[in-house]
């Protein structure tokens, strides 16, 4: 099904929480492990702009629909960061821009050369590189949607749960965009299918790995996806990815869980 970009841009808005009673967090604070997971999610949402940068080194943004999507998507993700930061703040945890900057500065040369690597790869692969980014983005957005839904299911907090559902609802739209883009572009090019498969198989990691400390990645994956119920959700994400043209049989998310020893 085609993604209606005009409708999406017209309706795009920052996630709202003014109507939710955040005082409830003071009466009924969230447990430590949930706050740790929320902090991770919050940072990742703010770091979306780093992923936007990678997308912009491909020729994709010259297409008006893709450029329009990126503008709105980047802003919606920023607002997810703001919403989660507001929850953390009610627990005495302040997420400020300078701290986020420090995380990005710590990435050092690896990050600095990232752009060059991405662009050179993009040049070598040509227009098909856009398909790789779209497939990668779809995998990330499926993961994010699953993570928010899962946290909403694990928690029973009367304010956190509706907020997470609102965020997940926006993530579902992002999934629709990336998946429809990936499907069309992969279906149109064998080269794109081969490279996207290779990239996902060899280089994909859970959203946030590479930016956040590995201990935090493991905490979040364990908190959200350990156990049989969690593993079922992981397999669902893999099933979605495997339905993309040329991605049959991939189970990259389950592999990432096994690598980190997350119990099934």
């Amino acid at each position, binding site marked *: 099904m085609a993604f209606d970009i005009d409708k999406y*841009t*017209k309706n*795009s*808005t*920052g996630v709202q929480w003014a109507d939710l009673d955040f005082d409830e967090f003071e009466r009924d604070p969230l447990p430590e492990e949930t706050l740790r997971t929320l902090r991770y999610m919050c940072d990742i949402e*703010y770091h979306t*702009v*780093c992923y*936007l*940068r990678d997308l*912009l*080194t491909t020729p994709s*943004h010259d297409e008006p629909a893709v*450029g*329009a999507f*990126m*503008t*709105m998507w*980047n*802003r919606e993700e*920023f*607002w997810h960061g*703001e919403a989660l930061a507001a929850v953390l703040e009610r627990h005495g945890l302040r997420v400020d*821009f*300078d701290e*986020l*900057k*420090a995380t*990005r*500065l710590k990435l050092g040369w690896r990050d*600095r*050369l990232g*752009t*060059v690597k991405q*662009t*050179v790869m993009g040049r070598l692969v040509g227009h098909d590189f856009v398909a790789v980014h779209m497939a990668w983005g779809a995998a990330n957005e499926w993961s994010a949607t699953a993570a928010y839904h899962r946290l909403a299911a694990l928690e029973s907090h009367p304010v956190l749960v509706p907020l997470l559902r609102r965020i997940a609802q926006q993530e579902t739209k992002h999934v629709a965009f990336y998946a429809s883009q990936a499907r069309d572009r992969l279906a149109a090019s064998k080269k794109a299918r081969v490279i996207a498969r290779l990239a996902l198989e060899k280089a994909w990691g859970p959203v946030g790995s590479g930016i956040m400390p590995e201990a935090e990645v493991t905490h979040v994956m364990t908190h959200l996806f350990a156990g049989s119920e969690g593993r079922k959700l992981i397999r669902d994400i893999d099933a979605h990815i495997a339905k993309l043209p040329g991605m049959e049989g991939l189970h990259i998310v389950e592999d990432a869980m096994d690598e980190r020893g997350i119990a099934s």
Partner: protein
Amino acid sequence: MNSKNDTTTAPPDSAGFDVREFARTAHGNHRGTLDLDSLADEPLDAESVRLVRALRDMERTTLHRVRDLLVTATHKDARVTAFLTTWMFEKFWIADALDAVLDASPAARDLPASAGPARRVWAERRERRGPVLRSLAANFTGTQIVAEHVTTGLVDEWITQAAYRRLAGVSCAMASIIDPVVEIKHRHIRFLAAEAERRLGYSARARRITNRALRHSAWPLGSVDRAEHERTFFERHVFGDQSGRAEARRIRAMVAALPGIRPGVASTVESRLLP
């Protein structure tokens, strides 16, 4: 690399511009409030329509500009990227409003094509670099490059604002459409001005690279990719007459008033604006 990185960047701004408030009160879709009917009563002349198209095209290349900023250390500054996120959103909808003006203007149908050969000027060669060269070069500049980006962004806003004001002066109908745009851009200017002053005031290295960038920029930013005839049109229409030259002088004075920007650099900026 420490000397180039955070140890020498300006301390965080605790007062001043509130990026979170800016994000909260962003201006999106203008379609519901545009008075396009009065544009039918007072249709735009061909030159003004051409200027609308030029400005629309400039607003449309925002993602390109964002890319050039993000491939450098600027992407690490979360406060700046938070600003850019809302800034590109507002510019997206300004371009959309200008699209609506073009759709409502009969003269838009007879404009000369905007595509054509680019102007090749030796002084602007830095601007023609792609993301790889930009990224590699910026790795050696370090985090002080943020000063260059906010200052050239600020000067660019001053220049485009002069163009918007010219459009607003064409008719009451245009003023009602353009005044809110100028208002939106005024906030962009406030952020960029505060950041530029703070960063330039703090670091000699920031001043050095910013002086160099101002000397070599094609104005408005992104012009290196535009057709020669469109650039000539913009310079003639916005800065060509007496009031335009006065605008250019005003911009020179504002550039010269920035901390550590040499008078000769401000004059170079002014001379590049004039036809």
